[in-house]
């Protein structure tokens, strides 16, 4: 049985006290414990930013990649060994800024990975610049006169890109976030979990308090049907006094790896390579 302690490392996180990242790390550990996933079968791929450090404090296989480059590494690892549980973690700058191209294409591909985005609407590690999800008018070191751009809407973008699992969590609600991560990992296909993750050092606007007052759970909305794309899209556009969290959209589509007959019997990593016969191929060139 996988337990919480064996997933924990000797070193303690270096995140700021009170940072939303603590909640995400604990929710992820809880999810792995509840799913009873052997730690050697879990691969966590991260990018750069405060979120990028997450794998340092959880005992699994990990690849701490470049800024914005989590998804290509995670996707390929899953393709060559689909028996792994692959979880990608990144920040809003990482995934919706520099890595935006990979994000869209990963959703299109529907490789069975779970993508957790630590969305704090600010660049924290570089000490406070505007991020792709910073609100219009938001004043930061790089936007002293207020951000002119409007923010990216990752949930709407994901629904439009036909992601098969689109959810939003809140780092201040651990049980709820744990549940979302469990659902995301269990989901067959690409799962986005955008997490509202207050940055206590550099984002004085989108604080825990700010979100506590605003968030409400979609699962409590009796009439909400998260398999209805149009309804999901409407909910995705909701932001302001009320901010929905939970699963916005879910659909079923074959995963990319299911479409590959090469690995239908055996994961690619288990294919023998010692004595591959290419004599037939050489004959084709004669």
């Amino acid at each position: 049985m996988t337990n919480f302690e064996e997933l924990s490392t000797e070193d303690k996180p270096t995140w700021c006290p009170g940072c939303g990242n603590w909640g995400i790390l604990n929710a992820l550990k809880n999810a792995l414990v509840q799913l009873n996933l052997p730690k050697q079968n879990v691969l966590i791929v991260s990018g750069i930013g405060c979120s990028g450090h997450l794998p340092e404090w959880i005992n699994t296989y990990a690849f701490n990649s470049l800024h914005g480059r989590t998804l290509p590494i995670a996707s390929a690892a899953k393709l060559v060994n689909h028996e792994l549980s692959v979880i990608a973690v990144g920040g809003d700058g990482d995934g919706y800024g520099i890595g935006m191209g990979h994000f869209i294409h990963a959703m299109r591909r529907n490789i069975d990975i779970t993508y957790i985005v630590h969305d704090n609407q600010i660049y924290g590690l570089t000490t406070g610049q505007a991020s792709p999800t910073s609100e219009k008018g938001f004043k930061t070191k790089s936007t002293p006169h207020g951000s002119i751009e409007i923010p990216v809407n990752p949930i709407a973008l994901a629904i439009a890109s036909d992601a098969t699992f689109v959810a939003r969590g809140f780092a201040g609600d651990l049980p709820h976030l744990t549940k979302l991560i469990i659902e995301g990992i269990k989901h067959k296909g690409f799962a986005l979990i955008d997490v509202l993750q207050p940055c206590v050092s550099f984002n004085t606007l989108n604080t825990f308090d700010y979100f506590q007052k605003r968030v409400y759970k979609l699962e409590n909305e009796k009439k909400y049907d998260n398999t209805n794309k149009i309804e999901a899209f409407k909910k995705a556009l909701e932001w302001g006094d009320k901010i929905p969290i939970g699963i916005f959209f879910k659909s079923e589509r074959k995963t990319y790896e299911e479409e590959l007959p090469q690995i239908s019997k055996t994961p690619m990593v288990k294919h023998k390579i010692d004595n591959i016969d290419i004599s037939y191929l050489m004959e084709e060139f004669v």
Partner: protein
Amino acid sequence: MKKYGLTWKIGGEAGYGIATTGMIFAKTFSRGGLFVFDMNESPSLIRGGHNTHTVRVEDEPIFSHIKSVNILVALNKETVDKHKNEIALDGSIIYDGESFTIDRSEVRNDIKLFSVPLKRLATESGGERIMQNNVALGASMALIDYDIEYLNSVIRDVFGGKKGKEVADLNIKAAKSGYDYVKEKFLNAKKIKIEPIKNSPKRMYITGNEAIALGALKAGCKFYSAYPMTPASSILHYLASKEYDYDIIVKQTEDEIAAVLMAIGASFAGVRAMTGTSGGGFSLMAEAIGLAGMTETPLVIILAQRPGPATGLPTHTEQSDLRFAMHTSNGEFPRVVVAPGDIEECFYETFNAFNIAEKYQLPVIIISDKYLSESHRSVDLFDLSKMKIDRGKLISDEKLKQMKEFKRYESTVDGVSWRSIPSQENGLFKAATNEHDEYSKISEDAANRTIQVDKRFRKFKVLESEIDGAKIYGDNDADVTLIGWGSTKGPILEAMKFFQKEKIKIKFLQVLYILPFPKEKVKDVLENSNKTILIENNKTAQLGGVIKEFTGKDVDYKILKYDGRQFAPEDIYTKVKEVLEFDKL
């Protein structure tokens, strides 16, 4: 000594099957036991623009094209205008006199004009006008007096497969009509006689890129990710076509950044992986190549060069990314740069690259160029008997169990540490883009930093002692030494034939590995040569600079070319001659 030899060139508008026709011609002779080399030149357009395919045929081994053309098949007037000066003494032009006319005064007197109604014969034999290419092939066979059955067999394979026997028969009929027309109409024309060589071994008619792809398949490459870019795309195409037969995942990505990262991710997860691109895409890969270096993830990268900077001349050839390959990415880390010079080296060095990448856990860059990647040559079947997969310190589950603790980045004597892959119990580690300690934990400690940098470079020292990175061809006691790398090998070896005929002693030093650089061997050659002449297809003599850096020696002369075209052997001969004459003064 050669008895037979000719160069045949077909030219016309892009999009009219020039390359296919050229390939059929070349294979026709390759199957007859002759040696062939071909190259195509085309603009970066799908339709329109001028396209040529040049095939050289001889009865002894050949390594490149030569300039002078014996038979020019001109599908349009532009071909005549552009290439009439390349025609050898007593050469011929085959053209369709019903489509355009050639005034006798336009071409030299010795050139023979064969007007063959290509389009009419194509339609009369029941085909489309596009089959005029086959009529021209038939006409060429008649002029060469070569057994047309070889041509038919190739046509059957090219058109017979998917399209069925009917299409093949139509094409064969069209070819025969051209053949018969020339035989009847130009009964007394002097033929260039080429005879098949009986009982010669089977040879492949294959490009550098195809050889690279075969080398990768043989090496057990299970993941190839790439973004389309000339002249690397045919590796993607070939491997994709074998995806199911050879159980390999071939992924076209959203960009080259994803391509290289996917290959890194696949390799990290335990399979042999490769990516391929040209200079522009390679620029995008720069940061991730450093990631492979830092995380010590094995990686093979094909860099098929074309003239830059930026988009440059997309469909032409140049050797201007050597320094770039040596220094791509920020920071310092060991990497291998290998520059195959011919088809065989494309195959064997790609295979080796996978062994080196895994044995030393670093990126290996195979640097080619358009000329090598896309030109065909007839080569013997590759010798597979001695090829052995070596996965280096990829750790087994048993060994992991025996270990008290697993240190992924252990600072060993040879600098290489045991590597586990996800799913192995007791092998947990975190590949980290940050500097890390032996346990793979991120560390900014100064002493640890030095230990890890030294560890990574120690691998390179060991690797250096294992690789013989230079080859020498020709006379040991030569008066003149030519030095080059990559695809110029072919034209250089051909140019040497001219000197050997004149009894001038000449040798060629081919630098095969740029990193690790074969400094002892190169230094030795430079110290013991009367005259050294560097030949490079670039402006700044990049190899010359590298030689100076590693040996402290200068080359005596440089012959450089950077017009986007490969050296012709005749040009090298003339330039070297000039140097020799100049030296006498």
